């Protein structure tokens, strides 16, 4: 590793100029919500970094986070991610299979003890001795304990690796859990979402290489730079919410003009995510931008706590003007099964408890940061 090239050198060989490189560092500084002066710090750190080994594990997954990873959006980001790291194991894209693939995993664990990053995608089934997911004849729960237990740090990407996600939705047929419950006590960053947004994964990695520490997180392990703000607070449609202009039916005039989707079930008022700021696929769009409500995919156990997706959240108050959305709107709130009350959201936002990226204290009392009841007790079955 000693003679491994720095990132900047490697990029130069790939036709990425220093100017493009610094532009990337500036982009990363803005994703990480750092002041512009940090772009220089990031550049200095990356120039010196040899490629950090990375092992990407997939268990009860759909490879959606892998696909998201492949969509790294800035024209140079995917190259930077590929060249910045040494991705030694990733079943979906690695050249070898079978024994030779397992050799790549073993080599990494042997040669880089406590010196590699582990990324986990998918839930880990704990039921029935682990028979619901095996790789090379080994149970996922045994693999995740060995690999994450010896890693420098682990990043759980997507809802499934965070809290069990879809496989853990009621009635959780395979006793699926996320990394935090399968391997308690490790250094862990959680990046929920279905899938996670690759801009944020790149942000975590660059943050680590720059500051030699993982980014500050809330009490659920989510980086504050990406999961510190309610979608509702930064939604471009917020003005319509405040003014009481709601989509009433799909395809109506309000829907065509981009009015608020709250009445169509949008979970933005309860979802902590930087989606409105960074967008998806190189900021091409994002779900609300394409006129469907947020489903709260970055929220805890969202398959149980944010469903039914088309039922509106209860009593989200309009602030700025002191009336509720229902008073502004025309309808009557139907039966609502969402798990969390809205008052906590309102009070937190009103209190102005908004974290700044590094070392910030997580906003207390936000509904989205509370652990839900154990899986299996929710609606849906």
């Amino acid at each position, binding site marked *: 590793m000693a003679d491994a090239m720095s990132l900047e050198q490697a990029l130069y060989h790939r036709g990425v100029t220093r100017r493009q490189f610094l532009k990337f560092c500036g982009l990363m500084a803005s994703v990480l919500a750092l002041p512009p002066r940090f772009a220089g710090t990031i550049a200095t750190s990356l120039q010196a970094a040899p490629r950090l080994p990375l092992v990407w594990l997939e268990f009860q997954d759909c490879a959606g986070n892998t696909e998201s990873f492949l969509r790294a959006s800035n024209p140079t980001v995917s190259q930077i991610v590929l060249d910045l790291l040494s991705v030694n194991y990733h079943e979906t*894209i690695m050249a070898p299979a079978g024994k030779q693939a397992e050799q790549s995993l073993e080599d990494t664990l042997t040669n880089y003890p406590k010196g590699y990053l582990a990324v986990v995608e998918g839930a880990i089934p704990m039921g029935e001795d682990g028979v619901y997911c095996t790789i090379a004849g080994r149970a996922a729960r045994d693999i995740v304990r060995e690999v994450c237990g010896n890693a420098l740090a682990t990043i759980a990407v997507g809802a499934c690796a965070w809290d069990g996600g879809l496989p853990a939705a009621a009635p959780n047929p395979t006793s699926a859990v996320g990394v935090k419950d399968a391997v308690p006590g490790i250094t862990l960053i959680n990046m929920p979402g279905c899938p996670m947004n690759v801009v944020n994964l790149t942000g975590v990695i660059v943050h680590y290489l720059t500051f030699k520490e993982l980014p500050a997180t809330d009490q659920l392990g989510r980086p504050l730079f990406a999961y510190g703000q309610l979608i509702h607070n930064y939604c471009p449609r917020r003005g319509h919410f405040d003014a009481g202009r709601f989509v009433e039916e799909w395809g109506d005039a309000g829907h065509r003009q981009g009015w608020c989707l709250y009445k169509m079930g949008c979970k933005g008022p309860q979802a902590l995510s930087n989606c409105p700021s960074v967008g998806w696929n190189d900021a091409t769009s994002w779900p609300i931008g394409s*006129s469907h409500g947020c489903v709260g995919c970055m929220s805890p156990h969202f398959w149980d706590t944010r469903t039914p997706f088309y039922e509106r959240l209860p009593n989200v108050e309009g602030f700025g003007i002191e009336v509720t959305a229902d008073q502004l709107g025309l309808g009557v709130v139907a039966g609502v099964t969402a798990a969390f009350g809205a008052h906590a959201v309102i009070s937190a936002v009103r209190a102005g408890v908004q974290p700044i990226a590094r070392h910030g204290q997580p906003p207390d009392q936000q509904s989205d940061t509370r652990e839900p009841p154990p899986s*299996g007790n929710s609606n849906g079955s």
Partner: protein
Amino acid sequence: MAKLVIDPITRIEGHLRIEAVVEGGRVKEAWSSGTMFRGVEIILKGRDPRDAWVFTQRFCGVCTTVHALTSVRAVENALNITIPENARIIRNIIDGAQHIQDHVIHFYHLHALDWVDVVSALQADPGETAALAQSISTWPKSSANYFKSVQDRVKTFVESGQLGLFANGYWGHPAYQLPPAANLLGVAHYLEALDWQREFIKIHAMLGGKNPHLQTYLVGGMAIPVDPNSQIAINAQRIAQMKQWAAMARDFVEQVYIPDLLAIASFYKDWAAIGGGLGNYLTYGDFPRRTIDQPAEFWIPRGVVLNKNLATAPAAMEQERIAEYVTHSWYTYAGGDAQGKHPWQGETSPRYTGPKPPFEFLDTDAKYSWLKAPRYDDTPMEVGPLARMIVSYAAGHPEVRATVDGVLQQLGVGPEALFSTLGRVAARGIETLLMTRELDRWIDELAANIGRGDLAIHSGERWRPESWPAEAEGWGFMEAPRGALGHWVRIKNSKIENYQAVVPSTWNGSPRDARGQPGAYEASLIDTPVADPEQPLEILRTIHSFDPCLACAVHVLNGNGRELTRIQVV
């Protein structure tokens, strides 16, 4: 004879294991096993049918969008909803774009390394690569300097000593046949395709909010509005942007993918006689030009071809003739495991009877997979791009006939070459080429429809559950990139009573059925040459030619399973 085990099969989606017996340098017998189970259909029970597409889309993130579309079609079928024209066309655009992007990723990032030796590219003369590139295509990135820069990148990478994803590959294996110059071409386009797919799929982000896992489907239509006088809806600017993405797709497929495919295939013609397998092909048909209940108007036809018969028109496909077996799958049926059950009568209880992990071998005489075994008229079928091209060819589809004949002629092989590993690879490319042409037409069709003043994107009269019958059942289907995909839903008192999916990789990757008939992967591996059992590259070639997707393939049908152990999640 000891068994050969390949687990994990990499460069696929999901968890697939192949066990095989190799004798005299050829595969004598093979078993395909899916080794992961989630139980999504159990989770769907009791939920709002309008939510189902969000759940089922997560069957797979590689085949993103396809299970969402199939799910809304199933619920619309159950509730007798006809969607507006704009929604139909937008769905075709999304679906077509998925095929194009998915097939290109498959060719370059999941399959190419079976044919292209990355290390050999280091020995190439960039001038020779440029000459080769210019002889097969007008793609502008084809100078000797360009290929020299790619080669330098690879050299730099190798010299770093950290080989990452390429470590422990089968480099130098005798089955690699390409000259160094062609290997360098393959490596260059591997990298270009990585950039291309990221840009092209922005068409999904525009129409679906994000990719993967688009978020604008609705039971009854789409949530992305159309309105020429709105800045947030599909307007003239966005139509123009879509046209650009379509042109970008067509350029890349015509000038890079297809020339590469033909060039590489010309070095591997022996693979036109390997990996044929079942010889039975099934399609549900897709890309409706009118409503979904008029299959005769689909762009890809519906039908069944048996025994490699291209001479007569395909037989009719009737979904009622599908049944699934669990004889060799880790499930039980109440009436005994020897019978097959149609999805409507689907009844499944997961029961693992395999070895306790860690294990070395599965007991392939007994149950050995989380995949079930779907059969049509008790016959195992292959689905996918090859099935689509064969059914279309037999049905006399003019564009398919012309393009398939052209490719066969260029390779100097007859139609029998289609029934092979190479045939699968070629069919996928041909389909992609035709799809890029169609994509542009669909965008024009959308523009024309909006131009007529039609702004409808959703049929709302049966949106509210109060408007639904007490009980309903529906079938949704599509041609996903990997083949025929069906969802069956039963709705009772506004909730999902039962949900079930029979997906392409379940057809292709299925274990044996009650009669001991192998699935498509298993059958296709028979007689595949294996030069070195320690480096089973040839087995990967045939398996990858199907583009396996295992997360999709493993399902359980309803909640009749026994109570499973549950642990407290805190």
